[in-house]
């Protein structure tokens, strides 16, 4: 049986979520592996969400916000931009592969871009294989 | 190499009756509904576009105007009232003027005064000449016989002379037409084979007007065919059987049967056309250039006087018959001498020629495409 990755996407309401909606209204097809969660701004994405998603079995996490300079809240996406390198350091130390967590800028007019990102990420995760986190922790509980 | 346009051309064409062509924005409705516009041809729009742009050379070498018989449907369908039909008509006038090396045609088309003047003067001269000559031949009381005022045998010779002059001008202009359309184009200049193969089209189109018959509307074609056949019949009779027509108390029915039918045909159609143009009954009668009126007036005059003199002579009024005859000739001479080579009549030669040339052109183009096929294939491969 072939493995299908599950991606949890945190999209900012103003640009990226609208962009994803635009992909819909323009019927641009992309893999159904992503599950989108709407937040008002990418800056609302607490790194805890990312860890939680991985903990609960996500194979990848995608965070999307407005392009730098275009944030509906003027600077929210810069806050996300600052957070990500640190989050990546943390994840690397926990042995999470870099490809699993991704930050992208998608504007309200970039339905195609959003679809491309999801397709690309899905491809990469298929190649990478399932995330070990959930299984590992289940295993830890039964065998020390 | 870019072609230099002549912005004035479109103004020049106004004198020939093309007034609305600038309105055309090439939506293609006319091409869509014209039966002559097949496949990717842009008939009648190509010529209209060349006219709008002022591509004089291209236009002069374009046969399209002759391929149109002016059924008038395009003009009716045109969303912008650009009158494609009438534009083609005007282009035919313009081309006639272009083909004519003497410049007479141009003068006639551009100013009806000149035309009328020329016709009137010629008529008067003819009148005077025949009167003087008549009195030197016999008595005005005699229509035929030894003492005939205008002896058919001699008039016959005059006819031939006139025909000679007419043919000279007409043929030389046809020569120019060939040069403009095919001669200049090295692809078609020496296509001897195709010239021979297609030759049959000349008589075919001349006598049947078969292309006209293809138009959606049949009536104009019928009328035109009757007119044209009657005219040709009459021409033949005059050229070869004049003596029998004017012959003696005894009626030669072999000739008269034709003569009278032709006369009837001519009268009927001419009157139909005149009525049409006055009442603007049909699209192709909506616009009338001076030359159209001249054409019909001369025709009706000549036909009626012809019939008249016959009637008078048969009913024994020879003097009156002779006078009618002179008037008849006063119409015939300007008609044949001026209108046929330099006026609307010329199309009796240009049209069939155009069909013929068009066929040759088509052959040439097809041959060219065939020769290009491998190239095309190579490109697509």
């Amino acid at each position, binding site marked *: 049986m072939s493995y299908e990755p599950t991606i949890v996407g945190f999209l900012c309401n103003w640009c990226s979520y609208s962009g994803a*909606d635009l*992909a819909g209204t323009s019927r641009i097809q992309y893999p159904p592996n992503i*599950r989108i969660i709407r*937040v008002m701004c990418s800056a609302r994405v607490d790194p805890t969400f990312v860890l939680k998603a991985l903990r609960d079995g996500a194979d990848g996490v995608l965070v999307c916000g407005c392009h730098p300079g275009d944030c509906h809240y*003027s600077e*929210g996406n810069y806050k996300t931009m600052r957070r990500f390198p640190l989050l990546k350091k943390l994840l690397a130390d926990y042995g999470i592969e870099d490809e699993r967590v991704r930050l992208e800028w998608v504007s309200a007019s970039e339905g195609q871009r959003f679809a491309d990102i999801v397709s690309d990420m899905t491809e990469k995760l298929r190649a990478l294989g399932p995330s070990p986190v959930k299984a590992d922790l289940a295993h830890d509980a039964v065998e020390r | 190499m*870019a072609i230099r346009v002549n912005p004035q051309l*479109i103004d020049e064409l106004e004198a020939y009756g093309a007034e609305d062509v600038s*309105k055309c924005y090439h939506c293609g409705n006319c091409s869509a509904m014209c039966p002559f516009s097949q496949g990717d041809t842009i008939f009648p729009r190509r010529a209209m576009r060349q006219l709008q742009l002022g591509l004089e050379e291209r236009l002069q070498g374009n046969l399209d105007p002759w391929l149109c018989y002016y059924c008038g449907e395009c003009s009716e369908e045109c969303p912008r009232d650009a009158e494609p039909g009438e534009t083609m008509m005007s282009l035919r006038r313009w081309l006639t003027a272009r083909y004519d090396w003497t410049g007479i045609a141009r003068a006639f088309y551009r100013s009806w005064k000149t035309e009328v003047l020329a016709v009137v003067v010629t008529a008067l001269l003819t009148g005077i000449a025949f009167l003087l000559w008549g009195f030197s031949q016999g008595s005005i009381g005699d229509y035929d016989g030894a003492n005939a005022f205008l002896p058919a045998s001699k008039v016959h010779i005059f006819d031939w002379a006139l025909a000679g002059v007419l043919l000279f001008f007409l043929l030389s202009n046809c020569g120019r037409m060939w040069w403009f359309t095919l001669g200049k184009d090295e692809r078609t200049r020496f296509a001897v084979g195709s010239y021979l193969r297609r030759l049959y089209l000349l008589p075919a189109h001349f006598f049947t007007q078969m292309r006209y018959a293809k138009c959606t509307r049949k009536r104009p074609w019928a009328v035109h065919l009757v007119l044209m056949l009657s005219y040709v019949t009459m021409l033949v009779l005059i050229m070869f059987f004049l003596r029998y027509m004017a012959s003696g108390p005894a009626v030669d029915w072999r000739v008269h049967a034709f003569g009278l039918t032709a006369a009837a045909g001519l009268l009927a159609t001419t009157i139909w056309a005149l009525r049409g143009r006055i009442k603007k009954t049909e699209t192709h009668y909506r616009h009338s250039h001076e030359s159209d009126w001249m054409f019909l007036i001369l025709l009706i005059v000549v036909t009626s006087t012809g019939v008249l003199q016959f009637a008078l002579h048969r009913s024994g009024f020879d003097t009156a018959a002779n006078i009618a005859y002179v008037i008849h000739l006063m119409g015939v001479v300007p008609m044949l001498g001026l209108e046929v080579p330099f006026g609307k009549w010329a199309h009796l030669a240009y049209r069939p020629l155009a069909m013929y040339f068009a066929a040759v052109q088509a052959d040439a183009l097809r041959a060219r495409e065939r020769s290009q096929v491998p190239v095309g294939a190579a490109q697509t491969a």
Partner: protein
Amino acid sequence: MDGEMKIGVYVCNCGTNIAKVVDCDAVAEAAAQLPGVAVARSYKYMCSNPGQEMIIQDIRDLDLDRVVVAACSPRMHEPTFRKAIQQAGLNPYLLEMANIREQCSWVHSDPVMATQKATALTRAAVYRVARHQPLEQRSVDLCPDTLVIGGGIAGMSAALDLADAGYKVYLVEREDHLGGNVARVDLLAPYLDSARDLLTERITRVMEHQNIDVLLGAEVESLEGFVGNFTATVRGQNGSPFRRSVEVGNVIVATGYKEFDASRITYYGYGKLPNVITSFEFEKMLRQGRVQTKEGRLPRYVAIIHCVGSRNPEYHTYCSRVCCMTALKYAHEVKAAVPGCYVSDVYIDMHAFGKGHEDFYRRSAEVKTLFLMYAKNDHPVIRKAGPNDGCEMLIEVNECLSGETIEIPADLVILMVGMEPREDSEQVAHLVNISRDKDGWFIESHPKLDPVATTTDGIYIAGACQFPKDIPDSVAQARAAAARILARIARGKLEIDAVFAEVDEDRCSGCRVCNELCPYSAIEFDEEKRRSHVISALCKACGACVAACPSGAITARHFTDDQIFAEIEGVLA
């Protein structure tokens, strides 16, 4: 409490829009099994009246306390369903939508996978809604005055409507005169009426209007606050410099456009050939009543070239919309000014979309304008004419309609330069906090349903700053903006979304990490209590501070950690 919770789940088929890919019944059945779900239905059109009725009835009959609608994007119908459940007496915030159309059925074709995804999204919505709390809308007073940025035809029209309704308007114009780009124009297509007359009436009314405070030679320096309560600082530099701050409730941005710089295009010889000029330079000639070449001669041949900088991948791909009719107008004006002059109009397509435009096009053809069509990627080329060409320049065009490469004479060439966003559109966008599209035009809140408002509440756009527009369209949009604002003023109070951030003062340790973060300076630090707190009216609920608060003392109403955790568990369960 999950025990007694009663959630209603409604799966919309959206005709076949959702149902053709997603098995809506299966989604509903799956939802029915979830904890707290009292009823789960699938229906043709949830947004239809019967659809909403169904929800309302269920709420009443089964006394549901929470509702999930799995349908289109919440950006589309959340307000609809919030109203619906409100009618049934539920707090509007006890609703959650699952986006199974835009983000599922429309973008996926595999029914199995799509149905799985739709089920997951619906599950997430159920988990989430179970953690929703009822929230109360707040209303604040709003200042009835309006700030209009830009004194062009759009700005003035909006200002007049607002002022006529009896409200104060501050009209800020950078130049020392009103009128904007229209003031640079002679006659107007398609009726060839005078732009001057049109403007004079507007300008005099604006200048004399007691409710309009015209600030010429001035710029807006900063805009603080939020809808209903903005504070703008206006700085005037020319004349006697001043800086004043005005209180306004709404803002209309009508900053217009600037024309494309023709010298960016080399192949038309603009700047090198003296008689190649732009449309605006020609307007100037017309206004001065002298149509002539640089050498002062009357042109015999005038050529007009369309789409200069527009519909061109190298410059702007969009159509500038006004040039076609303006070009036709020139044909008329040239013929009028120089009788017997030949005008050729070199175009790609003739865009005659507006009222009276098609007739105008026809009339222009009747005055014997020579229309030459060139292909989008095959522009004409202009060169200096030789001594015996009898004209200044020759234009070579590959003419599409004839298929010929032709050469037309020209003494004067007019380049129809397109419109582009002003150089400072980016600063303006930041100033009023709105977004720009890829070309730099301001983005409206909805391209079809709300082309006047922006994503920032209280900021409206009018005229060509949004996209190239002709005068009627600009004025229409301007007056629509005015109407929108008047409608709001009429309501007196201003309903503000109940979604905002809150600091739990018992948990705040006063570390002040959040203070720096708020783009709306909605977070205040109370030196007394040594706690931070949020001014809810200023808060726009972005949640940046919530994520940043190291002690978890800030909650985002309606986007709490709990609710989002629930959603994560939902999509992954």
